């Protein structure tokens, strides 16, 4: 992970202000604020129905927002023309198109739409499909198909890549390979990535920043560790005392507690274990807080926009 620091010179790749979306009485988004910066991997996390898909489709220019202001690569997505489209890549989870085409044929064809495409052969090597180049698309496995979708998504050298639940249905190895690929794109080529996922481990592994969308609002937004720190879930410390009894204690300051324990015991502590809250703890906490109806108390999340 790169060193964090403010970047006053560059304007954000994605900038959304107070975006709302309502279908009649049904309010899906209740004022979304987002800034995604160049070269960043940004994960949008949230339960089903939280408004993830709607948010992403507004950013992709596939859906008209009810209100609010959006700029993606400096352009309002609702008015994005071909030149704008050419700077954006898309990987969706439901694509099953072009089944009769051969892998290399399809990639080479889509390269012709872009002014400065990647070399299809190099791209196949990058996504690990060189051996499948001559294969018909509908004979690919699920993981191979998704990697082909990624290749198609980046063939035009996009500055911004949308990944929609990219690893759904992947086996662990395919998932790991996919993560390496996304990391390479972001770290080595400076592609900005907006990822939506259910997979907390994936978000934690890939994302520079994570936003959690619950009930049409962004509850929290920050780095994975930032999120964990901010969650009410506290670090758990477990140990076995001198008399053999197991102890566990929750604390905001595990270092102090452990130091205290060592001083008291004047030596090593048996079975000492410090468990930081995982992203999952944070996530569940957020979702539950929304369910409780105590969601008004989320000042750290929103606000601050002019």
């Amino acid at each position: 992970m790169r060193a964090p620091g403010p970047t006053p010179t560059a304007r954000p790749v994605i900038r959304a202000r107070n975006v709302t979306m309502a279908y009649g009485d049904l309010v899906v988004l209740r004022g979304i604020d987002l800034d995604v910066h160049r070269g960043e991997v940004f994960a949008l996390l949230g339960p089903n129905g939280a408004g993830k898909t709607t948010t992403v489709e507004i950013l992709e220019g596939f859906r008209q927002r009810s209100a609010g202001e959006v700029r993606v690569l400096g352009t309002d997505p609702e008015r994005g023309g071909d030149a704008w489209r050419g700077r954006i890549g898309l990987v969706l989870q439901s694509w099953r198109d072009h089944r009769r085409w051969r892998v290399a044929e399809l990639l080479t064809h889509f390269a012709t739409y872009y002014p400065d495409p990647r070399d299809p052969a190099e791209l196949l090597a990058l996504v690990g499909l060189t051996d499948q180049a001559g294969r018909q698309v509908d004979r690919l496995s699920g993981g191979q198909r998704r990697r082909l979708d990624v290749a198609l998504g980046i063939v035009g050298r996009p500055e911004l890549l949308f990944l929609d639940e990219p690893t759904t249905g992947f086996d662990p190895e395919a998932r790991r390979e996919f993560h390496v690929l996304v990391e390479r794109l972001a770290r080595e080529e400076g592609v900005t990535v907006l990822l939506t996922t259910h997979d907390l481990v994936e978000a934690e592994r890939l994302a520079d920043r994570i936003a959690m969308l619950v009930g049409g609002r962004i509850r929290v937004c920050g780095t994975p560790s930032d999120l964990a720190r901010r969650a009410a879930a506290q670090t758990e410390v477990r140990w076995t005392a001198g008399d053999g009894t197991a102890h566990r204690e929750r604390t905001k300051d595990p270092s102090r507690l452990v130091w205290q324990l060592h001083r008291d015991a004047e030596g090593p502590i048996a079975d000492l274990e410090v468990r930081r809250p995982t992203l999952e703890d944070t996530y569940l906490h957020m979702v539950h807080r929304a369910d409780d109806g105590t969601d008004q108390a989320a000042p750290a999340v929103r606000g601050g926009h002019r």
Partner: protein
Amino acid sequence: MTDKVDAVDTADVAGMNDAPGGTAEPRRPTRPYWRAGLLRGGIELRHLLRNPKEMSGQLTNVVVALLIAAYVSGEVPGTDTPMAHLVLAGFAAYLLFQIGLISLPQMLVTEREEGALLRLRATPGGIPAYLIAKCLLVVVMAVGSLGLLVAATALLVDGPLPGGPGDWLTLLWVTTLGLLAVVPLGAALGAVLPNPREALALIMLPTMGLLFTSGAVFPITSLPVLVQQAAAVFPLKWMAQGLRSALLPDSARAAEAAGSWELPMVALVLTAWAVIGFLLAIPLLRRAARRESGSRLTARHRKAVRSGAVLA
């Protein structure tokens, strides 16, 4: 955004500072769609020719035509034209009709459902290229099947052929105008029909009904007047009549309802359908493309999986 968030913004990637996200000007010129469209049409055509299922469908048409020609005997009443020729001319018209109103909507609905349309929408110049490719595909399919049908029946069973340059010219313009009448209409259907499975069921019945009421397969004068009038609203009757005028000798006019080929009327009705088709197709296709999005694709996919039509 919150101050907190800004504080953890990532550092700018080296070399990217000169192209901040805020440039609204199109940095890259867009390429003409034509090259991509024609390339795409060529590739789709190759896939069609390589697909045994599609090819056997086209060959079945020719075999059916040959069987018709072999089994239908006698003359068109009041003329010395073989009845088989009238049926073959009608069958040729039906082939064109079917390419525009069955094959094309099926292709469109399938590609919409699978996400090809969405992918092209997300690609610069993708939708125009798609339309160009489909036009190329339909024209080649139509000319190919018509040519195959006429050539095979002429060679093997003494089928009808245009009698002179004038008849060839008629064949050309009726085919062109006939395609213009049905292709936009088929595109409009492809834009609104729900999914490939239901689409076929919805189109098949009316198409078969028109086949039997338009005088394509037997003389129209043998049908009740009311049925004749109803069928005369639709393009198939006029396509068949136009092709008969090109493929049959002038003496066969006697069997027509009006006692003539009514070529101006053929041109008028087909042009009217072409105009209606374009007026319907353009907004409907635009709407279909605009409505495509990942979530709709997912919803349709789930529905298809639930109904057992496709594997997950």
